[in-house]
């Protein structure tokens, strides 16, 4: 069944939402709504408040202030009813390695009060979906990391949830496993399941999310569809120029930064100077690159690419390493 995203029917509404642990405020007042059928992304560096927000959405963590309605209900009073309609894919999986794939689905389905027969039928579908049918009777501790993640997602779907919460679903997976997982998430999205995804992989957010918010130090610093965020906060293209202190290259970059490249090349939106290299944000990547070549910049020092959410993200949350 296909559902159309609708702001009139929000599944989640947060207003001024806060979460404090003692004197530390992990979430400092954020507003967002998530519509039915939407794939909603929460982005941010480590410690930004993503996981705290996720736990409040999972109705397992009480908010410290503000308003939160999930499926039209107040999680402080109707936690159990809300959780009955959620599917949760936690960051560290909570599968039982000593049990088989099938047994893990059975016990989890029982937590929702589903009858054994219904669980058996649902298990067959979910194993197919997770591409684990052949491993149904293997113990979970014999599965690879990617298979365990797929099983965790399948398990979260056992109760046919209205919202699936995925907390960094692909962290720690190799590229192949990541892409298989993306396929699964695309399929959910296509089937109209509402997804809430936290990630710090920009490509993931860009490809999977209809809309996202970028959180930094407990506050929303930007929100919108991925392409709109890129359009608003970055340029169409980015040229990475490595100068390694070379005088000729630096001079060409300085002229770009002053906004006067000459030769009829449109001035770049911004030039970000980094140690040994610079990022040139521009809507005219190839022209600017040609201009730089003409100035004597060696071709192998230069790389033109489409700008990504990563550029937006680094721009908004800064480049310093947050531990």
């Amino acid at each position, binding site marked *: 069944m296909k559902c159309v995203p609708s702001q009139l029917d929000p599944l989640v509404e947060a207003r001024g939402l806060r979460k404090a642990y003692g004197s530390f405020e992990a979430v400092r007042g954020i507003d967002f709504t998530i519509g039915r059928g939407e794939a909603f992304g929460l982005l941010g560096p480590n410690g930004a408040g993503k996981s*705290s927000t996720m736990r409040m959405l999972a109705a397992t963590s009480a908010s410290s202030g503000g308003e939160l309605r999930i499926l039209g209900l107040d999680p402080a009073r109707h936690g159990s009813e809300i959780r009955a309609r959620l599917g949760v894919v936690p960051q560290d999986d*909570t599968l*039982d390695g000593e049990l088989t794939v099938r047994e893990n689905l*059975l016990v989890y389905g029982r937590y929702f009060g589903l009858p054994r027969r219904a669980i058996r039928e649902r298990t067959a579908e979910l194993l197919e979906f997770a591409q684990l049918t052949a491993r149904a009777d293997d113990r979970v501790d014999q599965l690879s990391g990617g298979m365990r993640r797929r099983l965790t997602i399948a398990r979260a779907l056992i109760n046919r949830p209205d919202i699936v919460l995925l907390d960094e679903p692909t962290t720690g997976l190799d590229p192949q496993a990541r892409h298989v997982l993306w396929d699964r998430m695309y399929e959910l999205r296509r089937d109209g399941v509402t997804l809430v995804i936290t990630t710090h992989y920009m490509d993931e957010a860009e490809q999977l999310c209809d809309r996202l918010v970028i959180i930094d130090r407990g506050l929303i610093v930007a929100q919108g569809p991925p392409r709109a965020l890129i359009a608003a906060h970055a340029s169409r293209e980015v040229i990475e120029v490595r100068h390694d202190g070379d005088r000729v290259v630096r001079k060409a970059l300085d002229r770009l930064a002053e906004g006067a490249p000459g030769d009829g090349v449109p001035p770049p939106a911004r030039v970000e100077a980094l140690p040994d290299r610079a990022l040139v944000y521009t809507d005219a990547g190839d022209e600017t690159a040609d201009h730089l070549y003409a100035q004597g910049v060696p071709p192998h020092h230069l790389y033109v690419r489409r700008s990504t959410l990563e550029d937006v993200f680094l721009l908004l949350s800064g480049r310093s390493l947050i531990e």
Partner: protein
Amino acid sequence: MLTLGRALRGTTYWFTSYRRSWRRSLVPSVIGPVLDLIVMGKVLGSLVADRPGAVERLGGVDYLSFVGPAVVAVTALVTASTEGTSPVYHAMTSTRTYAAMRATPLTVPEIVVGHLVWMAVRVAVAAALVAAFLAVLGGTHSWQAVLLVPANVATGMAVACGVAAFAARQRTSGILLAWQRFGVVPMMLFAGVYFPVSVLPGAVQAVAKLTPLWHGIELSRALAAGTATVDGALPHLAYLAALAVAGTVVTVRTFLDRLAD
């Protein structure tokens, strides 16, 4: 909030998990007590029988009938201690089963109660097997002995409900053994399993009578002999029930704290 129906949903997990590991529980819960009945009840009992005045000092029964019901109570204590420590610790830390349950409609009190109900089942099965073996050896003398099972579920739960809080609080598993060493072993030695507590000095006796095991043993001896009365049993059951309730409250609080996000 707590509804029993939801609490019981967790037992499917504990049962499924137990099916993988039941062999490990045979030694503490069944084989150990059965050997205890044979070695203590029969072998040591044959030596005790020759002592003049022994039967009187044991309350008018032979040594097997004295020690046997106590071994049923010890079975409950040991099973409850095993089930209340390691599985709780692992579900909290390594397998994170409780965290998985937390993401579902189950509330924290329901998670606790569901696990405690499973522990009660384990205690009941172990107590029933050992009580049946005691009956085969001839250590029971009345149909009241059937009640050894529920009576010792009370003994076991008086222990398990509180020990679960201790296990849930730990960050490393090594300390779990402390309960076996400093809780279970002293109780087995001084709560009147192998000799009546009346032979102990007054102060030690008073302490022994505070242990759940002593109350379980008193109940068990009366039931095995067929001399139990409601008036006689009630104080013991009330004491065990009070310990179980207090333990459950502490365990729920500990879980709320440990599972808080």
